[in-house]
């Protein structure tokens, strides 16, 4: 009888611990997501401010939000990674083109 009681306490403690751990994990996932999402969105906005945003970057970010809300953290992070890359590439393209465009003008 005593061992059954102990097992119950143990099981209950384990469930509480696991839930707590999951909740901590989810909070960490959300914090990671928010930080990366904001970083990617800032790059997108910087590119947009100079008319250099790429077509799909905004859509990647919106879809990432939906995937995160649905619990698909890995998919959401993969989408943010694509958006981040596109934002960086767009800004680099704008910088590169500052001088290069003039070589295309017919003389």
């Amino acid at each position, binding site marked *: 009888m005593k061992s059954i009681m102990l097992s119950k306490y143990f099981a209950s403690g384990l469930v509480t611990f696991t839930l707590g751990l999951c909740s901590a994990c989810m909070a960490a996932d959300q914090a990671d997501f928010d930080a990366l999402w904001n970083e990617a969105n800032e790059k997108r906005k910087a590119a*947009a401010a100079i*008319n*250099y*945003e*790429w*077509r*799909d*970057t*905004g859509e990647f970010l919106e879809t990432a939000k939906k995937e995160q809300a649905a619990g698909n953290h890995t998919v959401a992070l993969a989408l943010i990674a694509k958006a981040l890359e*596109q934002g960086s*590439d767009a800004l680099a*393209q*704008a910088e590169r*083109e500052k001088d*290069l*465009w*003039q070589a*295309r*003008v*017919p*003389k």
Partner: protein
Amino acid sequence: MKGKIILLSSIVLATVGISAYAGPEQDRVAFQKFFHDKFPRTPKADFINGIYSIDAASREQWLEIEEFPPYEIAIEEGEELFNTSFKNGKSYADCFENDGKNSRKNYPYFDPKRAEVVTLELAINDCRVANGEEPLKYAKGKLAAISAYLSFVSRGERINVVIPDNAGALQAYENGKEFYYRKRGQLNFSCFDCHGAASGQRVRADRLSPALGHVSHFPVYRSKWGGMGTLHRRFKGCNEQVRAKGLNPQSQAYKELEYFLSYMSNGLEFNGPGARK
């Protein structure tokens, strides 16, 4: 002595650099020559027909389409809208001289007071707002119909964009020029890559049209759209085809792009509205 030579060389180079660019007119001459050289069999005045000026097979199909032009309905709708009075009793005729006839040639222009490029579509909405009406959407619909009507009654007029002696106007022109030649989007193309350097080449089943004369035939009925669209609708579509985020019709960048591109086609006739695939 060495220092003097370097200084002299710098002055000479700077002088050559300045005199090498004489401004928009020099750009226009070089731009038109580029296309005349690239398509020597196309009569100069025929560039207003876009891709149909350089692709005989497409031209045959287009001429058949022109027998019952799909933009005719838009012209009729535009005429009706143009002649319908606003709530205050005035109409578009109060904004566009000569009942709108031949008015297409007056656009785009740079307005120094507003410090911006004014396009035909912007002028249509300005007219509405000045008379207490809501502005229309810029890409298609009623505004494209009114633009189609005004273009139709201006056919045969020549494109004659003037860049006034004004720093703002020249800056607007330069901005439009820079936008035109800069690569953008995930596919890393400039407008000129497709419609200049690669014009005449195939993209899948279609040939790329030459930029010279591009502005002459808008708005157009486009089969892909199943309806009419303005020049800025096409700008946006082009940008998105190279996977750049398209800008809003009548945004500053697109107005300045139209200003530059129209100047490049100076001397050609307006023949809008048009029909395209």
